[in-house]
């Protein structure tokens, strides 16, 4: 080997060794969230960085399970994590997250009282989660496939849509969806066999499972699906931002509602930055911009919702008391339930073979 090349390689080695030692520098806020879910919007990140001097580093998860595993196996790495309120209890009992000093969050006072006081987020008088947005797991349709929007969840089982239905690859959501389809309370499922039978008959209808918004949007863009479960905020985004022929349907049987909240992981190295970031995320200014530019679920901040135009979907439909009656909020589930749901879901997926 000639000399210059050798030198180059040695230099590279040296550079790399220093690269290893220079891992995380100061004033970074590491955020763990769904991809394309507000916190990683470039305009929001830039504005936040400019205002606070913190640098935002985003990382994403694919399922609540993966989110939990990521904080378990990367202690000290994340400063902010977005947790579905139904999972907050589990994260807290595993000591993965720490109490939040809400006095450092000026916008916390504007969070609607029923959300801020939720027993799912507060334990022993301490706040472990700051409510951010709430929304529905309802149905969304490909407008090209329907003359007029369906009203019933039964549409998913219609043979006309065979092979053109999509649902999320998530055990809890699938089982709770099955509960709604069989007329049960999602947080107190009495008849699991009915749910299993119902879901088993759904499997042949299904094209694929989605795990990210992008999956859904691509399937619609390439006209491969007619109908499927979707999140309300995502459906809004698909329509507003990506101009896709998607519209949300809240079936007469009801829908699963969820509340997403921000927490601070136990080992966070930048709690101040984390507080600033969370406050930024629940600020009405950010919210309005998010809704108009991209599309979003409903904010937990009452002032933020009021800042929307009167006829906005998130104000008119989601705020409709008629709708409120039909939806069921997800409550925490026990480990035993989760394992039972997971086993059922895996079995359903294997039976496809």
């Amino acid at each position: 080997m000639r000399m210059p090349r050798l030198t180059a390689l040695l230099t590279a080695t040296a550079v790399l060794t220093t690269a290893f030692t220079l891992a995380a520098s100061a004033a970074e806020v590491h955020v763990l969230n769904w991809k394309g879910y507000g916190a990683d919007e470039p305009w929001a990140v830039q504005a936040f960085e400019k205002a606070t001097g913190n640098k935002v580093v985003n990382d994403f998860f694919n399922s609540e399970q993966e989110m939990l595993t990521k904080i378990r196996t990367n202690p000290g790495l994340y400063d902010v994590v977005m947790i579905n309120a139904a999972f907050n209890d589990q994260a807290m009992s595993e000591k993965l997250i720490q109490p939040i000093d809400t006095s450092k969050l000026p916008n916390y006072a504007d969070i609607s009282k029923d959300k801020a006081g939720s027993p799912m987020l507060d334990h022993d008088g301490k706040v472990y989660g700051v409510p951010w947005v709430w929304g529905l797991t309802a149905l969304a349709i490909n407008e090209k496939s329907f003359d007029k929007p369906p009203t019933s969840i039964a549409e998913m089982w219609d043979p006309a849509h065979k092979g053109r239905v999509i649902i999320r690859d998530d055990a809890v959501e699938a089982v709770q969806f099955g509960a709604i389809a069989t007329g049960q309370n999602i947080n107190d499922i009495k008849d699991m066999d009915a749910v299993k039978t119902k879901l088993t008959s759904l499997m042949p209808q299904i094209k694929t499972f989605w795990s990210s918004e992008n999956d859904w949007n691509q399937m619609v863009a390439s006209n491969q699906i007619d109908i499927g479960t979707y999140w309300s905020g995502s459906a809004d985004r698909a329509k507003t931002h990506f101009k896709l022929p998607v519209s949300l349907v809240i079936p007469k049987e009801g829908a699963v509602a969820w509340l997403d909240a921000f927490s601070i992981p136990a080992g966070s190295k930048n709690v101040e930055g984390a507080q600033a970031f969370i406050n930024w995320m629940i600020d009405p200014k950010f919210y309005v911009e998010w809704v108009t530019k991209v599309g979003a679920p409903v904010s937990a901040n009452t002032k933020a919702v009021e800042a929307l135009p009167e006829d906005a979907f998130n104000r008119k439909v989601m705020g409709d008391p008629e709708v409120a009656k039909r939806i069921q909020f997800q409550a925490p589930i026990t480990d035993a339930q989760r394992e039972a749901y997971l086993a059922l879901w895996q079995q359903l997926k294997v039976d496809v073979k």
Partner: protein
Amino acid sequence: MMTTRILEGLGRFYIGLLLAFLYLPIIIMALMSFNVSPFYQLPFEWTTEWYASLWHNDQLIAATWNSLEIAIVTTIICVVLGSAASLALYRYEFRGKKLLQALLFPPIAIPWLITGTAMLIFFFGVGIGRGLFAILLGHVALALPYVIVVVSARLQTFAPELEEAARSLGANQWQVTMRVTLPWIMPGVIAGGLFAFAVSFDQFVVSYFLATPGQTTLPVEIYAAIRKGFTPEINAVSTIIIVVSMALMLLTARFFKFGGEK
């Protein structure tokens, strides 16, 4: 000769089909990196926007550098350790040598899913943890056996009389190694190094289990992007990788006969 000519024509046609099968998806992926629609919708509209936005994707760029650095360091370590081990296995007779040679196969033969998860458990358990250093540890272990096998194969063609001749001319063991043996096995060493680089640079499974956010490699980043919503940026970066790696392969193929001999 009719039948022979027909068979030859059929053979060429068949190879043509195979090449189409092998290259069609790659070409289409490359084309889509120049298409406007983020959902790969047709009709095709030309743009270089995805390449432009690639420039500003710090995460992807950082992961690319990580991949390159790890591949280079893996190559250097593997070549040094591997050549030394090959020389020892060639030069000396001792009990247990067969076993040592047999031990080279598990890293090659065991599915990466198993090695990867085993490394995750062990590194996590003993406190090495995950991240770039763990990935480097893993990559070297995966590539080392290839280097030893390739260099050993080259050593088989080496005539031991050459070393003896050098000794008879007054060279000591070190001089013999540096001036006679190493130059002879150089093609093997370079081929082994290329192998190590390729194994490391393309390695996804093991990296996937050992990566942490911020300390990832390009394939891991691509997988995350594919699963969590990808954009044609991924096509753009894939196209660049494919073009560069194929160009490198063609270059090396010009310089060395395939397999590193001659």
